[in-house]
């Protein structure tokens, strides 16, 4: 391919190397690091004049460092007369509003609940969403195009004034289920929360499988406080957990949980617990972005999940070493094909339905 350079940020260099291998081009040379005062240093060593530059950087690890590095790389290519700079972000940072920091379990470093730190006031504390800011920063740095996968909010695309190609992990997930889950026709697709129902039903429809939903229900009439935690099935096809309910039949069946992000993995491990309670035979969880931060790995190991399947949108090597429940599917082919098509001006929508060979 002509007039193309792929550069790797320091978050996930293997991903960029795989893309280059598939495209049959060498990885662009650049030197990344930090000065002794912790400022990020970027030196692009190949000429990028009049070339389409693709910069691969995932939103993982030290998110802020990696994101600032991406911005500086974009700006460096832009000032060095690159024709077009595309940010390839397999896992988009700050894509979702993480749950409120003062939530009890599984949530962040929130050592002390926010309202206790701030003293009680009438003002309702709120947590800032950085989504628009991150989009504006990418545009201000000079990005001309964004390629990403399974954005938590599809509306996110609207925050940009530049083209955003949001690829889907779904064709690869379908492929994985077809090839790796024995007797998948008998299994049930489960969404671990109401927000992901649409994502899960599409997969269930495509594979002609049954579907179940877990719903966080705090003030359900059947759910009086003294019943909480102890409640069994009270309605046909409904199983109550301590703070959530399962709608659908899963007894003695294989369950496949589908979600887009497993961060602290609090949601899917809770969901697996409820599925187990409802009599599920085996529990898979297939998730596009396996950030697995905090004590997620410990939680997964101790959970009822039999197999957690994630993509390599963030580096998984360390996670693989920590738990043998983890399986990884490769999405670099998808990105390489998207880059090839975008560079050649072909349609990308083929990739929304099919897996490239």
């Amino acid at each position: 391919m002509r007039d193309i350079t792929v550069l790797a940020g320091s978050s996930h260099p293997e991903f960029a190397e795989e893309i280059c291998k598939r495209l049959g081009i060498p990885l662009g040379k650049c030197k990344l690091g930090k000065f002794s005062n912790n400022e990020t240093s970027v030196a692009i060593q190949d000429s990028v004049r009049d070339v389409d530059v693709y910069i691969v950087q995932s939103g993982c690890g030290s998110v802020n460092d990696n994101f600032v590095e991406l911005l500086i790389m974009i700006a460096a290519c832009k000032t060095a007369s690159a024709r077009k700079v595309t940010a390839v972000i397999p896992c988009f940072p700050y894509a979702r509003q993480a749950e409120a920091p003062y939530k009890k379990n599984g949530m962040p470093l929130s050592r002390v609940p926010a309202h206790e730190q701030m003293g009680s006031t009438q003002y309702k504390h709120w947590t800032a969403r950085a989504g628009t800011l991150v989009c504006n920063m990418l545009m201000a740095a000079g990005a001309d195009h964004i390629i990403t996968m399974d954005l938590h909010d599809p509306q996110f695309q609207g925050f940009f004034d530049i083209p955003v190609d949001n690829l889907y992990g779904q064709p690869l997930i379908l492929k994985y289920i077809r090839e790796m889950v024995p007797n998948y026709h008998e299994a049930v697709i489960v969404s671990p929360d109401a927000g992901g129902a649409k994502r899960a039903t599409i997969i269930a429809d495509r594979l002609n499988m049954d579907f179940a939903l877990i719903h966080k229900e705090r003030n359900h009439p059947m759910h009086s406080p003294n019943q909480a935690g102890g409640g069994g099935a009270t309605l046909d096809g409904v199983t109550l957990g301590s703070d959530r309910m399962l709608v659908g039949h899963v007894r003695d069946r294989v369950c496949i949980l589908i979600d887009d992000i497993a961060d602290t993995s609090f949601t899917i491990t809770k969901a697996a617990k409820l599925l187990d309670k409802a009599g599920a035979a085996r529990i898979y969880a297939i998730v596009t972005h396996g950030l697995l931060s905090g004590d997620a790995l410990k939680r997964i190991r101790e959970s009822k999940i039999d197999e957690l399947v994630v993509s390599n949108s963030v580096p998984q090597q360390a996670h693989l070493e920590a738990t043998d429940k983890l399986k990884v599917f490769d999405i670099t082919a998808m990105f390489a094909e998207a880059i090839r098509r975008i560079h050649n001006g072909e349609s990308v929508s083929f990739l929304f339905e099919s897996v490239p060979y």
Partner: protein
Amino acid sequence: MLNGYASSSSTNPPNSIKLFTGNSHPEMAAAIARRLGLQVAKCVVLKYSNQETCVTIGESVRDEDVYIIQSGCGEINDHLMELLILITACKNASARRVTAVMPCFPYARQDKKDKSRAPITAKVIANMLTVAGANHVITMDLHASQIQGFFNIPVDNLYAEPSTLKYIRTKIMRMPSVVIVSPDAGGAKRAASIADKLNVDFALIHKERKKANEVSKMVLVGDVTDRVAILVDDMADTCGTLVLAAKTLIDNGCQEVYALVTHGVLSGDAIAKINHSPIKSLIVTNSIPHEHLKAQCAKLDTIDISGTFAEAIRRTHNGESVSFLFHYVPA
């Protein structure tokens, strides 16, 4: 008035100052708040377990004049994101004006395309502050004052010089024998200005650099024999330059060497270098927190510049001139 926002304040009801702070330098924010007779606004800046920054705002900023204090030090990128998210949060919460107060401007030294394809990161930072929604920036002793031109919003570049002069006059004294020395040609103007104001001699050290952060050879221009030399610079990072300059001065017959620096980044093994150097005392402003380093380095002393920032905030809020602060230390 500047950019129109200040003129609108005449029609709106009077608003008040809200001070926010990130995690880079809470002591500075507390000192400024104390001087202004305010409380730092309630807000919690944390990190999620996935390392994303999480900002929770604990009080209303609607129609208020917001000042966010964050210095470019420590984990620079984390602190930068904190600042940007705070700005956006306040802007989205209908603050009338948001001012970023950055005692030390991050990435200020990456301000030119000095090699092929080198990024002009200072310009990127300027763009980021603007898109985040900052209406105004207050900083101090920018490495290159041209960085002000990277912005399309007003930038107040305060000077540490008046505070530095005050320190020399009150703490070092021994005026006639003092000579002000610039450790490199780039700082000559800054040093000459201080020498002029103190009415003392001036000397210059010319250095030949081979690589960034590495100095090869130093040439002294001017007489320092049996004098007290005061090295003046805007930034002490790894301190390689300062230590070599001090050695050069001692080799040329200098009695004592002081170093007065605005931004004491003191990264890498700077402290060890200073401890083993002939520098008698290294004086930095508190634009970057360094109290924790004093236990390791008895030579370190502080010039407090929180008063200058507090006064600049007060004047900016009231629409008064800030240029007074370019020449005087607020009482």
